[in-house]
């Protein structure tokens, strides 16, 4: 088994880990770096529970090799809060009861943040299509969409 040393930045902090070449980033983040906020729902890019940002681009971490993280910047749900101030999306998810079991929540938060960072006033349809890559089985998506709308409004006010 050949392991490669990876030098990367996760949520703004320098991180180093060693992983086999065939390991996917989702497993590296969970098992080597200990960030279990990244969830495996399917391992094949169909559910979005493992969503992260890679140099600011929203991706499924199960579809990226761990070694590809070398020299790149990774963003996970654990990096969304600023100190002990929750991100507006995190606040609104709690406020709107947009989570029940919560397993899909980290992935949704990362994906929703990527959406709002790109489009500050998305329509309902735009929100739904942007989040189509994140499966939820508990909520029927209703309160999730409302939470994203509320967060967008809150973020626009801040600006």
């Amino acid at each position, binding site marked *: 088994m050949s392991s*490669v040393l990876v030098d990367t930045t996760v949520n703004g902090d320098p991180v180093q880990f060693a992983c086999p*070449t065939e390991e996917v980033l989702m497993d590296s983040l969970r098992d080597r770096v200990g960030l279990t906020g990244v969830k495996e729902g399917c391992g094949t890019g169909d559910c979005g529970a493992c969503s992260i940002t*890679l140099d600011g*681009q929203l*991706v499924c971490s199960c579809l990226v*090799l761990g070694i590809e993280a070398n020299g790149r910047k990774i963003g996970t749900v654990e990096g969304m809060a600023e100190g002990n101030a929750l991100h507006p999306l995190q606040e609104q998810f709690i406020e709107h009861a947009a989570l029940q079991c919560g397993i899909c929540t980290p992935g949704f938060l990362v994906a929703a943040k990527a959406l709002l960072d790109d489009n500050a006033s998305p329509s309902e349809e735009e929100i739904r299509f942007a989040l189509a890559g994140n499966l939820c089985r508990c909520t029927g998506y209703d309160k999730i969409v409302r939470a994203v709308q509320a967060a967008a409004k809150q973020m626009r006010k801040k600006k």
Partner: protein
Amino acid sequence: MRYEAPTTTKEAVMLLAKEKGEAAVLAGGTDLLVRMKMGMSEPDLIVDIKQIPAMNALKYSATGTKIGAAVSGAMLAKNKAIKKAWPGVVEATNLIGSDQVQGRCTMVGNLCNASPAADGVPAMIAAGAKAVVVGKTKRRTVAVENIATGPGQTSLAKGEVIEAITLPKRPRNSGDAYLRFTPRTEMDIAVVSAGVNLTLVRGVVKTARVCLGAVAPTAVLVPDAAKAIIGTKLDADALANLAAACSSACNPIDDKRGTIEYRTKVAGVLGRRAAEIAFKRAGGA
């Protein structure tokens, strides 16, 4: 498993050519990593092409358009000029998977994975796209419809890699469109799809190409469907003939995503609808 990230096409080709074991090209990885997870692929060597500048080319020009093999769907979507000239080609690639998948997947990866239902392919073929194939000793240009030879199979020889896709010069009053049928609004593999590209002269269809996906082992160019609308303003008869030609050209299978009967019928419907959209985009009325 070994991993290499060459910085020139030549390097990539040499690595692939001399590999004795199983070598795989890594662009977005949205097919390769899935195959690896499911135990269907265990490469001895992965050649990551994302560091190769020639494969990151993304340029529209009046004489032609170049889209490098490492260009992701997300990057392609941001190129306004290409989107304006070739909305069908771009929307097709942008339909692959989710936003997360779009952050990684590539047109060329989609093409080389050679699924009969590949979303990016019918619109590329309808557009007359060509693949720049680079081998150890030569470069050749291959029409995209000659790349896939069957499910999961391509005409590329060992040691050959596609460096980029080129789209031809775009005449005025041209339009293209891609439609697919999926049971859900997103995240599905196309059950059946159609790409139509056409150019109008004085409001009349002068040239056209119609290509179907997911109705045969590879995407199917349907010359009879194109003939049905050339010389017309897309009247009801012309569209009906196009739809019939599309259905006739189908050679689909029954599988977990659709039946022969269904694919054959809906191919005609989508061919017709895609033609109508392309016509409108070309300025037709």
